[in-house]
Protein backbone atom coordinates (compact mmCIF):
# COMPACT_ATOMS: atom_id res chain seq x y z
CA UNK A 1 0.00 0.00 0.00
CA UNK A 2 2.63 2.46 1.08
CA UNK A 3 5.06 1.77 -1.73
CA UNK A 4 3.34 -0.43 -4.31
CA UNK A 5 0.37 1.84 -5.04
CA UNK A 6 2.48 5.01 -5.48
CA UNK A 7 4.83 3.12 -7.80
CA UNK A 8 1.84 1.88 -9.81
CA UNK A 9 0.33 5.37 -10.01
CA UNK A 10 3.64 6.83 -11.26
CA UNK A 11 4.06 4.04 -13.81
CA UNK A 12 0.49 4.25 -15.16
CA UNK A 13 0.30 8.06 -15.35
CA UNK A 14 3.80 8.37 -16.82
CA UNK A 15 3.31 5.62 -19.39
CA UNK A 16 -0.11 6.97 -20.43
CA UNK A 17 1.32 10.43 -21.04
CA UNK A 18 4.26 9.14 -23.08
CA UNK A 19 1.82 6.98 -25.07
CA UNK A 20 -0.53 9.93 -25.59
CA UNK A 21 2.33 12.07 -26.96
CA UNK A 22 2.97 9.62 -29.80
CA UNK A 23 -0.56 8.39 -30.56
CA UNK A 24 -2.83 11.04 -32.14
CA UNK A 25 -6.06 8.99 -31.82
CA UNK A 26 -8.97 11.10 -30.45
CA UNK A 27 -9.66 8.66 -27.60
CA UNK A 28 -6.09 9.09 -26.44
CA UNK A 29 -6.48 12.86 -26.79
CA UNK A 30 -8.93 12.71 -23.90
CA UNK A 31 -6.12 11.41 -21.67
CA UNK A 32 -3.88 14.21 -22.88
CA UNK A 33 -6.55 16.74 -21.86
CA UNK A 34 -7.64 15.33 -18.53
CA UNK A 35 -4.35 14.35 -16.88
CA UNK A 36 -2.78 17.83 -17.22
CA UNK A 37 -6.06 19.27 -15.95
CA UNK A 38 -5.90 17.01 -12.87
CA UNK A 39 -2.25 17.93 -12.37
CA UNK A 40 -3.10 21.63 -12.42
CA UNK A 41 -5.73 21.13 -9.73
CA UNK A 42 -3.41 19.08 -7.51
CA UNK A 43 -0.75 21.76 -8.00
CA UNK A 44 -3.22 24.29 -6.56
CA UNK A 45 -3.66 22.01 -3.53
CA UNK A 46 0.13 22.02 -3.17
CA UNK A 47 -0.09 25.75 -2.49
CA UNK A 48 -2.59 25.01 0.28
CA UNK A 49 -0.19 22.42 1.65
CA UNK A 50 2.61 24.98 1.63
CA UNK A 51 0.51 27.48 3.54
CA UNK A 52 -0.58 24.85 6.03
CA UNK A 53 2.99 23.76 6.63
CA UNK A 54 4.10 27.33 7.16
CA UNK A 55 1.40 27.79 9.79
CA UNK A 56 2.34 24.57 11.54
CA UNK A 57 6.05 25.43 11.74
CA UNK A 58 5.56 28.99 12.93
CA UNK A 59 2.74 28.27 15.37
CA UNK A 60 4.96 25.62 16.96
CA UNK A 61 7.69 28.20 17.28
CA UNK A 62 5.31 30.66 18.92
CA UNK A 63 3.81 28.15 21.32
CA UNK A 64 7.27 27.05 22.48
CA UNK A 65 8.54 30.64 22.69
CA UNK A 66 11.56 29.57 20.64
CA UNK A 67 14.42 31.91 19.73
CA UNK A 68 13.05 34.95 17.82
CA UNK A 69 9.44 33.69 18.16
CA UNK A 70 8.14 37.24 17.77
CA UNK A 71 9.22 37.19 14.14
CA UNK A 72 7.26 33.97 13.68
CA UNK A 73 4.26 35.89 15.02
CA UNK A 74 4.81 38.54 12.33
CA UNK A 75 4.84 35.79 9.69
CA UNK A 76 1.63 34.23 10.97
CA UNK A 77 -0.18 37.58 11.23
CA UNK A 78 0.87 38.56 7.71
CA UNK A 79 -0.26 35.16 6.44
CA UNK A 80 -3.64 35.18 8.19
CA UNK A 81 -4.55 38.74 7.17
CA UNK A 82 -3.55 38.21 3.52
CA UNK A 83 -5.39 34.88 3.42
CA UNK A 84 -8.57 36.34 4.89
CA UNK A 85 -8.73 39.37 2.57
CA UNK A 86 -7.86 37.15 -0.39
CA UNK A 87 -10.31 34.32 0.18
CA UNK A 88 -13.15 36.72 0.99
CA UNK A 89 -12.07 39.28 -1.65
CA UNK A 90 -12.68 41.95 0.94
CA UNK A 91 -12.58 45.55 -0.23
CA UNK A 92 -14.44 48.13 -2.25
CA UNK A 93 -16.10 47.27 -5.55
CA UNK A 94 -16.37 49.71 -8.48
CA UNK A 95 -19.34 51.43 -6.82
CA UNK A 96 -17.33 51.99 -3.64
CA UNK A 97 -19.27 49.47 -1.56
CA UNK A 98 -17.16 47.92 1.21
CA UNK A 99 -17.62 44.21 1.70
CA UNK A 100 -16.83 40.76 0.32
CA UNK A 101 -16.90 40.36 -3.46
CA UNK A 102 -16.21 36.70 -4.28
CA UNK A 103 -15.75 35.75 -7.90
CA UNK A 104 -14.28 39.07 -9.03
CA UNK A 105 -10.82 39.95 -10.27
CA UNK A 106 -8.07 39.53 -7.66
CA UNK A 107 -6.12 42.38 -9.28
CA UNK A 108 -9.03 44.79 -8.80
CA UNK A 109 -7.61 48.00 -7.24
CA UNK A 110 -10.32 48.29 -4.57
CA UNK A 111 -9.46 44.99 -2.91
CA UNK A 112 -7.35 44.93 0.24
CA UNK A 113 -5.63 41.86 -1.23
CA UNK A 114 -4.41 43.92 -4.18
CA UNK A 115 -3.33 46.74 -1.84
CA UNK A 116 -1.27 44.33 0.27
CA UNK A 117 0.27 42.88 -2.88
CA UNK A 118 1.38 46.34 -4.04
CA UNK A 119 2.42 47.60 -0.60
CA UNK A 120 4.14 44.50 0.81
CA UNK A 121 4.64 41.59 -1.62
CA UNK A 122 5.86 43.58 -4.62
CA UNK A 123 8.42 45.83 -2.85
CA UNK A 124 9.73 43.05 -0.60
CA UNK A 125 10.27 40.55 -3.41
CA UNK A 126 11.82 43.14 -5.71
CA UNK A 127 14.17 44.42 -3.01
CA UNK A 128 15.26 40.93 -1.94
CA UNK A 129 16.34 40.20 -5.50
CA UNK A 130 17.99 43.59 -5.96
CA UNK A 131 20.32 42.83 -3.01
CA UNK A 132 22.00 40.39 -5.38
CA UNK A 133 23.48 43.31 -7.34
CA UNK A 134 25.57 44.27 -4.33
CA UNK A 135 26.68 40.73 -3.66
CA UNK A 136 27.66 40.13 -7.27
CA UNK A 137 29.75 43.32 -7.16
CA UNK A 138 31.41 42.16 -3.95
CA UNK A 139 32.03 38.70 -5.41
CA UNK A 140 33.50 40.23 -8.57
CA UNK A 141 35.99 42.17 -6.47
CA UNK A 142 36.93 39.47 -3.99
CA UNK A 143 36.57 36.15 -5.77
CA UNK A 144 37.02 36.44 -9.52
CA UNK A 145 40.69 35.75 -10.06
CA UNK A 146 42.47 34.94 -13.34
CA UNK A 147 44.40 32.10 -11.68
CA UNK A 148 44.38 29.76 -14.68
CA UNK A 149 44.24 30.20 -18.48
CA UNK A 150 40.66 28.87 -18.41
CA UNK A 151 39.62 31.40 -15.77
CA UNK A 152 41.27 34.15 -17.81
CA UNK A 153 39.30 33.10 -20.88
CA UNK A 154 36.11 33.17 -18.80
CA UNK A 155 36.87 36.69 -17.60
CA UNK A 156 37.74 37.95 -21.09
CA UNK A 157 34.42 36.63 -22.43
CA UNK A 158 32.60 38.25 -19.51
CA UNK A 159 34.39 41.58 -20.08
CA UNK A 160 33.41 41.65 -23.77
CA UNK A 161 29.76 41.00 -22.87
CA UNK A 162 29.79 43.62 -20.11
CA UNK A 163 31.44 46.47 -22.04
CA UNK A 164 29.76 45.97 -25.42
CA UNK A 165 26.97 48.42 -24.62
CA UNK A 166 29.25 50.94 -22.87
CA UNK A 167 31.21 53.92 -24.28
CA UNK A 168 34.34 51.72 -23.96
CA UNK A 169 33.22 50.02 -27.17
CA UNK A 170 34.43 53.08 -29.12
CA UNK A 171 37.94 51.72 -28.48
CA UNK A 172 37.24 49.26 -31.30
CA UNK A 173 35.33 51.72 -33.45
CA UNK A 174 38.45 52.50 -35.53
CA UNK A 175 38.67 48.92 -36.91
CA UNK A 176 37.95 49.00 -40.66
CA UNK A 177 35.35 46.91 -42.41
CA UNK A 178 35.04 44.00 -42.92
CA UNK A 179 37.15 43.21 -39.82
CA UNK A 180 34.87 45.40 -37.70
CA UNK A 181 32.06 42.90 -38.41
CA UNK A 182 33.84 40.49 -36.05
CA UNK A 183 36.21 42.58 -33.91
CA UNK A 184 34.17 45.67 -33.02
CA UNK A 185 33.07 45.00 -29.45
CA UNK A 186 29.27 44.84 -29.94
CA UNK A 187 29.76 42.54 -32.96
CA UNK A 188 32.32 40.43 -31.10
CA UNK A 189 29.85 40.07 -28.22
CA UNK A 190 27.11 38.98 -30.63
CA UNK A 191 29.53 36.42 -32.16
CA UNK A 192 30.49 35.09 -28.72
CA UNK A 193 26.81 34.64 -27.81
CA UNK A 194 25.79 32.94 -31.05
CA UNK A 195 28.86 30.72 -31.55
CA UNK A 196 30.95 29.57 -28.56
CA UNK A 197 28.19 30.33 -26.02
CA UNK A 198 25.72 28.44 -28.19
CA UNK A 199 28.09 25.48 -28.40
CA UNK A 200 28.64 25.44 -24.64
CA UNK A 201 24.98 25.88 -23.76
CA UNK A 202 23.94 23.23 -26.26
CA UNK A 203 26.42 20.80 -24.70
CA UNK A 204 24.94 21.42 -21.26
CA UNK A 205 21.40 21.23 -22.64
CA UNK A 206 22.03 17.86 -24.31
CA UNK A 207 23.64 16.55 -21.13
CA UNK A 208 20.71 17.70 -19.00
CA UNK A 209 18.23 16.26 -21.50
CA UNK A 210 19.94 12.86 -21.32
CA UNK A 211 19.81 13.01 -17.54
CA UNK A 212 16.12 13.93 -17.50
CA UNK A 213 15.22 11.26 -20.06
CA UNK A 214 17.01 8.53 -18.12
CA UNK A 215 15.62 9.68 -14.78
CA UNK A 216 12.08 9.91 -16.15
CA UNK A 217 12.39 6.35 -17.48
CA UNK A 218 13.69 5.16 -14.14
CA UNK A 219 10.77 6.80 -12.35
CA UNK A 220 8.16 5.37 -14.71
CA UNK A 221 9.68 1.88 -14.54
CA UNK A 222 9.88 2.03 -10.76
CA UNK A 223 13.68 1.70 -10.61
CA UNK A 224 14.06 5.11 -8.94
CA UNK A 225 12.23 5.11 -5.60
CA UNK A 226 13.96 7.78 -3.55
CA UNK A 227 10.96 10.12 -3.89
CA UNK A 228 8.93 7.68 -1.77
CA UNK A 229 10.99 8.64 1.23
CA UNK A 230 11.58 6.53 4.36
CA UNK A 231 11.61 2.82 5.12
CA UNK A 232 7.84 2.41 5.32
Amino acid sequence: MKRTIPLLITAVVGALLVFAYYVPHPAVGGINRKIPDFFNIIAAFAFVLGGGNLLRVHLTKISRRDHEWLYALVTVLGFVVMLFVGLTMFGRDEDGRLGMHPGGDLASPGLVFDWMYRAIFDPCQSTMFSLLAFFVASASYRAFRAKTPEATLLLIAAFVILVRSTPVSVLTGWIPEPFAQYLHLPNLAAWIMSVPNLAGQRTIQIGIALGIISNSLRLILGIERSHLGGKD
Partner: protein
Amino acid sequence: MNAESVATWVGALLTLMIFSFLYRDNAFYKFAEHLFVGVSAAYWMVQGFWQQIIPNLMAKLFPRQFESVVEAARGAAPEYIYAIPLLLGLILLCRLIPSIAWISRWSMAFIIGYTAGTNLPRYLVSDFMIQVEKTLSTPLWNPQATHWLDSVMFFVSGLVIVGGVVCGLIYFFFSKEHTGAFGRASRAGIWVLMVAFGASFGYTVMARISLLIGRISFLRDWIESVFT
Protein backbone atom coordinates in the same frame (compact mmCIF):
# COMPACT_ATOMS: atom_id res chain seq x y z
CA MET B 1 -3.44 60.67 1.90
CA ASN B 2 -5.12 57.96 -0.19
CA ALA B 3 -4.61 54.20 -0.29
CA GLU B 4 -2.18 54.49 -3.20
CA SER B 5 0.18 56.87 -1.41
CA VAL B 6 -0.01 54.80 1.79
CA ALA B 7 0.97 51.74 -0.27
CA THR B 8 3.92 53.67 -1.71
CA TRP B 9 5.09 54.75 1.75
CA VAL B 10 4.76 51.23 3.17
CA GLY B 11 6.62 49.84 0.15
CA ALA B 12 9.39 52.41 0.48
CA LEU B 13 9.84 51.76 4.20
CA LEU B 14 9.98 48.00 3.65
CA THR B 15 12.51 48.55 0.84
CA LEU B 16 14.77 50.58 3.14
CA MET B 17 14.38 47.99 5.92
CA ILE B 18 15.59 45.25 3.58
CA PHE B 19 18.44 47.39 2.24
CA SER B 20 19.60 47.95 5.83
CA PHE B 21 20.85 44.35 5.71
CA LEU B 22 23.73 45.60 3.57
CA TYR B 23 25.14 47.42 6.59
CA ARG B 24 24.48 44.50 8.93
CA ASP B 25 21.74 42.07 9.97
CA ASN B 26 19.20 43.84 12.17
CA ALA B 27 15.65 43.71 13.56
CA PHE B 28 14.17 45.86 10.78
CA TYR B 29 15.42 43.49 8.10
CA LYS B 30 14.16 40.44 10.00
CA PHE B 31 10.74 42.03 10.44
CA ALA B 32 10.42 42.79 6.72
CA GLU B 33 11.72 39.34 5.76
CA HIS B 34 9.27 37.49 8.02
CA LEU B 35 6.35 39.66 6.95
CA PHE B 36 7.18 38.92 3.31
CA VAL B 37 7.28 35.16 3.95
CA GLY B 38 3.81 35.15 5.50
CA VAL B 39 2.21 37.45 2.94
CA SER B 40 3.70 35.62 -0.07
CA ALA B 41 2.61 32.17 1.18
CA ALA B 42 -0.95 33.43 1.52
CA TYR B 43 -0.74 35.11 -1.90
CA TRP B 44 0.07 31.82 -3.65
CA MET B 45 -2.71 30.05 -1.74
CA VAL B 46 -5.34 32.63 -2.66
CA GLN B 47 -4.31 32.58 -6.33
CA GLY B 48 -4.48 28.79 -6.44
CA PHE B 49 -7.89 28.87 -4.75
CA TRP B 50 -9.62 31.45 -6.95
CA GLN B 51 -7.85 30.64 -10.24
CA GLN B 52 -7.96 26.85 -10.18
CA ILE B 53 -9.78 25.18 -7.28
CA ILE B 54 -13.00 27.18 -7.58
CA PRO B 55 -13.44 27.55 -11.37
CA ASN B 56 -11.76 24.33 -12.56
CA LEU B 57 -12.68 21.93 -9.78
CA MET B 58 -15.58 22.97 -7.55
CA ALA B 59 -17.55 24.69 -10.32
CA LYS B 60 -17.19 21.56 -12.47
CA LEU B 61 -18.25 19.21 -9.68
CA PHE B 62 -21.04 21.42 -8.26
CA PRO B 63 -21.97 23.91 -11.02
CA ARG B 64 -25.29 24.99 -9.51
CA GLN B 65 -23.73 25.87 -6.16
CA PHE B 66 -20.96 27.93 -7.76
CA GLU B 67 -22.76 29.63 -10.63
CA SER B 68 -22.97 32.86 -8.65
CA VAL B 69 -19.17 33.20 -8.61
CA VAL B 70 -18.26 31.32 -11.81
CA GLU B 71 -20.26 32.49 -14.81
CA ALA B 72 -19.27 29.51 -16.97
CA ALA B 73 -20.90 27.12 -14.46
CA ARG B 74 -24.37 28.50 -15.19
CA GLY B 75 -26.44 25.77 -16.77
CA ALA B 76 -23.52 23.34 -16.93
CA ALA B 77 -23.84 19.67 -16.00
CA PRO B 78 -21.67 18.25 -13.18
CA GLU B 79 -18.48 16.47 -14.31
CA TYR B 80 -18.04 13.76 -11.68
CA ILE B 81 -14.63 12.70 -13.05
CA TYR B 82 -13.21 15.72 -11.23
CA ALA B 83 -13.77 13.81 -8.00
CA ILE B 84 -10.42 12.16 -8.80
CA PRO B 85 -8.28 15.34 -8.52
CA LEU B 86 -10.40 16.46 -5.54
CA LEU B 87 -9.58 13.21 -3.77
CA LEU B 88 -5.91 13.36 -4.74
CA GLY B 89 -5.73 17.00 -3.60
CA LEU B 90 -7.25 16.18 -0.20
CA ILE B 91 -4.90 13.20 0.10
CA LEU B 92 -1.99 15.57 -0.54
CA LEU B 93 -3.10 17.69 2.41
CA CYS B 94 -2.80 14.61 4.67
CA ARG B 95 0.91 15.36 4.68
CA LEU B 96 0.15 17.80 7.47
CA ILE B 97 -1.06 15.00 9.77
CA PRO B 98 1.98 12.91 10.81
CA SER B 99 0.01 9.71 11.54
CA ILE B 100 -1.39 9.49 7.99
CA ALA B 101 1.25 11.52 6.11
CA TRP B 102 2.31 8.38 4.22
CA ILE B 103 -0.88 8.48 2.11
CA SER B 104 0.21 11.78 0.53
CA ARG B 105 2.69 9.68 -1.44
CA TRP B 106 -0.20 8.71 -3.71
CA SER B 107 -0.70 12.32 -4.79
CA MET B 108 3.04 12.87 -4.99
CA ALA B 109 3.24 9.78 -7.19
CA PHE B 110 0.69 11.32 -9.55
CA ILE B 111 2.68 14.56 -9.69
CA ILE B 112 5.93 12.71 -10.31
CA GLY B 113 4.34 10.41 -12.87
CA TYR B 114 2.92 13.41 -14.69
CA THR B 115 6.24 15.27 -14.65
CA ALA B 116 8.19 12.20 -15.83
CA GLY B 117 5.63 11.39 -18.53
CA THR B 118 5.57 14.91 -19.96
CA ASN B 119 9.30 15.62 -19.64
CA LEU B 120 10.50 12.44 -21.29
CA PRO B 121 9.17 13.00 -24.83
CA ARG B 122 9.56 16.76 -24.75
CA TYR B 123 13.16 16.87 -23.59
CA LEU B 124 13.90 14.02 -26.00
CA VAL B 125 12.57 16.07 -28.90
CA SER B 126 13.29 19.72 -28.05
CA ASP B 127 16.51 19.42 -26.06
CA PHE B 128 18.10 16.32 -27.53
CA MET B 129 17.01 15.29 -31.03
CA ILE B 130 16.53 18.77 -32.46
CA GLN B 131 19.77 20.00 -30.85
CA VAL B 132 21.77 17.05 -32.21
CA GLU B 133 20.17 17.52 -35.63
CA LYS B 134 20.99 21.22 -35.67
CA THR B 135 24.57 20.55 -34.59
CA LEU B 136 25.19 17.91 -37.25
CA SER B 137 23.57 20.01 -39.97
CA THR B 138 25.51 23.19 -39.14
CA PRO B 139 26.59 24.63 -42.51
CA LEU B 140 30.31 25.28 -42.96
CA TRP B 141 30.05 27.15 -46.24
CA ASN B 142 28.06 30.29 -46.96
CA PRO B 143 27.43 30.55 -50.73
CA GLN B 144 26.17 34.12 -50.34
CA ALA B 145 29.36 35.45 -48.75
CA THR B 146 30.81 38.36 -50.75
CA HIS B 147 34.14 38.77 -48.93
CA TRP B 148 36.79 36.12 -48.14
CA LEU B 149 36.68 37.07 -44.42
CA ASP B 150 32.96 36.31 -44.25
CA SER B 151 33.61 32.87 -45.76
CA VAL B 152 36.47 32.18 -43.35
CA MET B 153 34.51 33.31 -40.30
CA PHE B 154 31.44 31.32 -41.40
CA PHE B 155 33.63 28.21 -41.62
CA VAL B 156 35.33 28.92 -38.30
CA SER B 157 31.99 29.60 -36.56
CA GLY B 158 30.53 26.35 -37.88
CA LEU B 159 33.62 24.46 -36.77
CA VAL B 160 33.45 26.00 -33.29
CA ILE B 161 29.78 25.04 -32.95
CA VAL B 162 30.17 21.43 -34.15
CA GLY B 163 33.58 20.89 -32.57
CA GLY B 164 32.59 22.73 -29.41
CA VAL B 165 29.50 20.59 -28.83
CA VAL B 166 31.35 17.33 -29.55
CA CYS B 167 34.35 18.25 -27.39
CA GLY B 168 32.10 19.53 -24.62
CA LEU B 169 30.19 16.25 -24.58
CA ILE B 170 33.53 14.39 -24.52
CA TYR B 171 34.51 16.40 -21.44
CA PHE B 172 31.35 15.20 -19.65
CA PHE B 173 32.01 11.55 -20.55
CA PHE B 174 33.63 10.19 -17.39
CA SER B 175 33.53 6.49 -18.26
CA LYS B 176 36.84 6.79 -20.13
CA GLU B 177 40.07 8.31 -18.91
CA HIS B 178 40.80 11.72 -20.42
CA THR B 179 44.16 10.90 -22.00
CA GLY B 180 45.67 11.18 -25.47
CA ALA B 181 43.43 12.51 -28.22
CA PHE B 182 40.39 12.02 -26.00
CA GLY B 183 42.04 14.19 -23.35
CA ARG B 184 42.92 16.91 -25.85
CA ALA B 185 39.36 16.97 -27.14
CA SER B 186 38.13 17.18 -23.55
CA ARG B 187 40.43 20.16 -22.97
CA ALA B 188 39.04 21.92 -26.03
CA GLY B 189 35.57 21.28 -24.61
CA ILE B 190 36.56 23.00 -21.38
CA TRP B 191 37.67 26.08 -23.31
CA VAL B 192 34.32 26.33 -25.08
CA LEU B 193 32.47 25.84 -21.79
CA MET B 194 34.57 28.56 -20.15
CA VAL B 195 33.53 31.05 -22.84
CA ALA B 196 29.89 30.05 -22.31
CA PHE B 197 30.25 30.50 -18.54
CA GLY B 198 31.91 33.87 -19.07
CA ALA B 199 28.98 34.98 -21.22
CA SER B 200 26.58 33.72 -18.55
CA PHE B 201 28.48 35.64 -15.88
CA GLY B 202 28.31 38.83 -17.94
CA TYR B 203 24.57 38.41 -18.42
CA THR B 204 24.07 37.55 -14.75
CA VAL B 205 25.78 40.79 -13.70
CA MET B 206 23.52 42.63 -16.14
CA ALA B 207 20.44 41.00 -14.63
CA ARG B 208 21.32 41.83 -11.04
CA ILE B 209 22.15 45.45 -11.81
CA SER B 210 18.83 45.83 -13.67
CA LEU B 211 16.93 44.79 -10.58
CA LEU B 212 18.81 47.30 -8.45
CA ILE B 213 18.05 50.04 -10.99
CA GLY B 214 14.36 49.18 -10.63
CA ARG B 215 14.41 49.60 -6.85
CA ILE B 216 16.41 52.81 -6.89
CA SER B 217 14.02 54.14 -9.50
CA PHE B 218 11.11 53.36 -7.16
CA LEU B 219 12.85 55.10 -4.24
CA ARG B 220 13.56 58.13 -6.43
CA ASP B 221 9.87 58.35 -7.37
CA TRP B 222 8.90 58.06 -3.69
CA ILE B 223 11.26 60.84 -2.62
CA GLU B 224 9.95 63.01 -5.47
CA SER B 225 6.38 62.41 -4.28
CA VAL B 226 7.36 63.52 -0.77
CA PHE B 227 8.59 66.89 -2.01
CA THR B 228 5.89 67.61 -4.63
